[in-house]
């Protein structure tokens, strides 16, 4: 394979026939995991500088996600990557989490990361458990606007994995699960994002 095809300097050339098609083909192969390590590196390096290829790459990913799940596809937006990058910039730096002593029960309530800050803020706003609402750590966690080295608590999943495969099982499970102590709709609260199963989908 000729690495020239993804040379950023050549991407400004109006794409005439074969060249653009070939690149699209190779991006598609990359998505499908059909390229070897060397080709992957070259192509990904090219993506960094070539706006058009980058756009195509995002589009292909969006198409793939749309085929798997409409909900996942709805995450695709122009500002999404920019917002995530900005949020990562603001994240406190984690220092040697492995060396931390075991956390107390109160600290276990604290969640790492920006999502946790949002969660804590909502919980404070609506007055959920008082011990987590007033804990000084929580208040501290709300403020960092600039990257400051912090010994952060690292535990538990931050990102909710939206596996389309799991979502359909969750949707099917909630239909027939029967909570006895809580309202019947509780399983729907738990998985409100999952699409109901439909015939022929």
């Amino acid at each position, binding site marked *: 394979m000729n690495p020239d095809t993804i040379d950023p300097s050549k991407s400004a050339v109006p794409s005439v026939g074969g060249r653009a098609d070939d690149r699209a083909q190779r991006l598609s192969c990359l998505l499908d995991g059909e390229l070897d390590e060397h080709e992957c590196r070259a192509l990904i390096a090219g993506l960094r500088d070539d706006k058009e290829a980058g756009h195509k790459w995002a589009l292909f990913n969006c198409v793939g996600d749309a085929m798997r799940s409409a*909900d996942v596809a*709805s995450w695709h937006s122009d500002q999404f990557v920019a917002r995530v990058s900005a949020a990562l910039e603001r994240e406190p730096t984690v220092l040697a989490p492995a060396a931390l002593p075991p956390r107390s*029960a109160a600290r*276990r*309530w604290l*969640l*790492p*990361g920006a*999502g*946790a800050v*949002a*969660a804590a803020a*909502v*919980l404070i706003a*609506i*007055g*959920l458990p008082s011990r987590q609402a007033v804990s000084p750590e929580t208040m501290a966690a709300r403020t960092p606007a600039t990257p400051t080295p912090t010994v952060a608590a690292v535990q*538990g*999943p*931050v*990102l*909710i*994995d939206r*596996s389309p*495969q*799991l979502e*359909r*099982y*969750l949707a*099917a*499970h909630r*239909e*027939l*699960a*029967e*909570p*006895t*102590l*809580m*309202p*019947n*709709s*509780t399983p*729907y*609260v*738990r*998985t*409100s*994002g999952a*699409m*109901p*199963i*439909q*015939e*022929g*989908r």
Partner: protein
Amino acid sequence: MQRVDLPVWRWINAAIFLLVCASLSAAQERAGGTASVDAVDGRSPEQWLQIVQHAARRLDYTGTMVYQQGAEVRMSKIVHVFDGQVSHERLQPMDGRPREFIRNADEVRCLIPEARQVVVERKARAESFPALAATATAELLQHYSVKIVGRERVGGFDCQVLEIRPRQADRYGYRLWVDRATGLMLRSQTLNERGDVLEQMAFVDVRIGGVDREQLKPSWSTEGWRVEQTAHRPIDLREQGWRLVPPSGFKPLYAVRRPMAGGQALQAVYSDGLASLSVFIEPAAAAAANDQLPQRGPINSYVRRLGESTVTVVGEVPADTARAVAQAAERIGR
């Protein structure tokens, strides 16, 4: 002692009796079947469980429920009405894409406005499987111990705090905050064996009683929307050539053939009264391999390739339990 047997005394006695009855039933009406403070304090943990079960079905209430799982927080509005026979519910998730779930007894209508579509899910229970509401507390107590651990205020309500601990590590524990006056559960936490909170739900601004049935109506007129039914057909697992072994104390609720994305599946649902799990059996996809799907709060799942089939276990149980159930599934001769 001289016996008072004058007609006027009898009349007064009868009047007092009637008055007491009336005030008692009025108090019951107000409180959804509860008694005096002394009686509340004297309740055993088992009685509390029965009251919570009863209240969740029989009370009318409306409010906003907050759900937290890991870093995710979601809010839903909920309306619950008991009409004397069955319960009706309307659930409006306030986050994500607009959806509404309207339940009437065993039927749930899922409203999907962007597709102008209603998906109707109807439960088809086999005759032999009893309704869970009948689950005796005594059976539940074989697998859990229940303790009253305190008294706290939640959402403005004076609550009893109950702790439900599993007797074995194959299931989760719970902590419940129950309104002392009505028995409605206002907060619940699901805990793993280390005491970590895997998920929690809490009512905020809940109103008990006096719910207008108009509030059960969906936000959108579904006139002209496409209506789709998910048909579940009860089946006999043995006749289908399958033997499943649920964890101890998990009773069968349903065994059905049902549509799944891209085909049909057998689904068997089991519950121990607090947690439930589903076993799905489908024709195996070519690439299917044994695997654990990502954990979602208290929900774990395990996929196992078994001959020409895939067995998938999904439920509010620890990962090891989900795997054990999948591993125990067996094909049997017909």
